[in-house]
């Protein structure tokens, strides 16, 4: 009896394995082919964010920032980039992820360039460059207006235009 039972279990397992092999053998189905966005994955605190590469101009090597007195907390300081003076904002503070400026040793500055604005953002760590399928973005996560969506449940795609023109950055208003 027991032999029969074992044999039955083994046959069932084999069926499962064959089925799984068949499924893996299928080519992946491209759901949305049109919208693919190249992004830079970065870390702010414990969270992962993405910024579209078209907004970026460069990733700068770690540099010493010159603090500016009498400015909001999210202004990390000034940066001299080949003779050009850049304002650098602390993105984590700006997104109200934390109240104090970043102290991470791997902190880096990325240069954001848009038709309206050219500014440096201080982030905790540059992770990598990735491609995001816009169709696969979860846009209904009820988050902030500067977030385009969430990819894979973990990465928040930032909408740079909205972020930098939002009212929380008064400075750019003036600039704009």
């Amino acid at each position, binding site marked *: 009896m027991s032999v029969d039972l074992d044999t039955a279990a083994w046959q069932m397992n084999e069926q499962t394995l064959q089925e799984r092999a068949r499924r893996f053998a299928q080519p992946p189905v491209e759901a949305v082919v049109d919208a693919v966005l*190249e992004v*830079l994955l970065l870390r702010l605190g414990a969270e992962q964010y993405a910024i579209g*590469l*078209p907004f*970026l*101009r*460069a*990733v700068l*090597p770690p540099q010493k920032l010159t603090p500016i007195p009498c400015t909001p907390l999210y202004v990390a300081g000034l940066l001299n980039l080949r003779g050009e003076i850049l304002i650098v904002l602390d993105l984590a503070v700006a997104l109200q992820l934390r109240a104090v400026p970043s102290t991470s040793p791997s902190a880096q500055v990325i240069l954001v360039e848009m038709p309206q604005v050219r500014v440096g953002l201080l982030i905790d760590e*540059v992770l*990598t*460059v990735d491609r995001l399928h816009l169709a696969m973005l979860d846009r209904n996560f009820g988050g902030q207006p500067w977030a385009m969506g969430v990819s894979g449940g973990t990465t928040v795609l930032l909408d740079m235009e909205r972020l930098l023109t939002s009212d929380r950055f008064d400075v750019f208003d003036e600039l704009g």
Partner: protein
Amino acid sequence: MTLNLRNKFLAVSGVVFVLAAIVAAVGISEALYIRSQVATMYQADLVGTGLVSMLSQDMLEMREKVLTHISSVEPAKKKEIEADIKRIDQNVDATVLAIKAGDSEGAQKDQVAKFVAAWSSFRTSRDALTLPASRVGGRVEQALAFYSIDENARVHSVSDAVNVLIQSKVQSANDHNAATERAFIRSAWLITGISLVALLLGSGLALLVARGITRAAAQMVTASRGLAQGDLNQILDVHSRDELGTMADSFRSMIGYQQRMAAVADEIAQGNLSRQVQPESPKDVLGRAFGRMIESLQRVAAMADAIARGDLNQEIQLQSPEDVLGRALHRMIGNLRSLIAELQQGSQNLASAGGEILAATSQQAAGMTEQSAAIAQTTVTVDELKASADQAVELAGSVSAIAQHANHIADEGVLAVRHATAGMDDIRQKTQSIAENILALSEQSQQISEIIATVNDLANQSNLLALNAAIEASRAGEQGKGFAVVAQEIRLLAEQSKAATAQVRVILADIQRATNAAVMATEHGSKGVDAGMQLIDQAGRTIDDLAAVIQQAAQSAGQIGASVQQHSVGMEQIAVAMGSINQATGLNLGATNHTRQAVQDLTDLSTTLNHLVDQYQV
């Protein structure tokens, strides 16, 4: 007149005396002559010369006085000078008288007369002319003229006379001196000659007389020396008519008497007591003594004859308190009596003692047999001892051999320790070099770590570049697609590099830990080697000590062997000695038997002796 010794001596003495008297007479007469010559020389010549010198002095003084008289103007002074002149005149007269008195031989008579004539002429002229002229004050020139013409000449003649007188005196003195010298030489020759003659004559006579006396005396001395030594065959060939001849005659008769007495003594010495000795004279002490001696000897001979016959009952009359022979005989008889008595007692004792000795000798023989048995036992024991001593010698030999082997092993041990020490040294050096190598390795790994840091940096920069390249590619749009792939690849490479550096860093940390551990291990190893060296040193010392102890043990074993060898030799000697003792005991046994036989003979002898002694009448 007989020419006896006294007369001879008197004659010789007389001759010598006469000659001595002649020498004395000649000497005295010559001495007297020399004395008279010397006296004359002194009286006439020396004193005369002195007087003449005085005259010369007076002349000089006179001349001075006269000239002073002339030159002085005061009348008082002139008077005073005239008194002086008078005194000088008197002096001269006295001196002339003295000279005349001294000139006894009249040798200077003419000279004196010449002086006196000159002197009186001078005085006359002076008193008549010079002094009167001088006395009158203003006639000094005249007085001087007188003096110079007249007196001066006279004064010169007086002085000449004095000089001649002095020369004559000196001549006379020389003559006397020469005469004295001649007399002395003559007398010296005379005395010497006569003395020589007296000496020769006296010596010759004395020699003649002395030779006669010496010859006779020498013969008599020879004869008396021979007599003193008992040689009576002396012949005296002295027949002079003096006392020596008489002495020789009596010597000859004395020799004859002694020869006769010697013949008598010789006969007595040959045992002939029958000779009758007649004394030569009533005072012949020796003859009478010989007679008494013969009588006394005859009595002693009779007594000795009786004693010889065994009759000891003789009474001895002592001739005098000093009668040695009589007393000796007396003592002999007494001693013989006691001797015979003691002999009788002794022979009896001898017999009983012989019996006792016999018994004792038998006992001794038994004892000797027992001794012989004991000696045999002792010999066996000594042999056993010797065998055990030989065994001990062998054992000592084997102990010595083992000790030598042990010594050899100890030497090898020492050598091994030395090798071990060298090996340890080598190990230490190698450990040292390992430690150094590991340190170098550690330094190199440090360098590697620095390089890795650089590589990591490079990877980071590469990553950054790749990111920027990706951004640029994205901005380039469709054309940048291929570049984006390249950027992606570069970024992957950079990430791989980073991962690799991380891995290398982990490995480096492992290496450093390992090198630290190795350094510690080499440190421990070095210490271990030191401890090992100490241990080896200790082991070496221990082995050395052990070797020394073994050496001592070997020496002791050798000494024990040697001493046991000596013991063995001693045992052998004891065995030989025991054999000798055994032999001697055997000999003793034989001797004891001989003794027993001798004692038997002795007993027999004592019996015989008893019989003999019984023959004497005590």
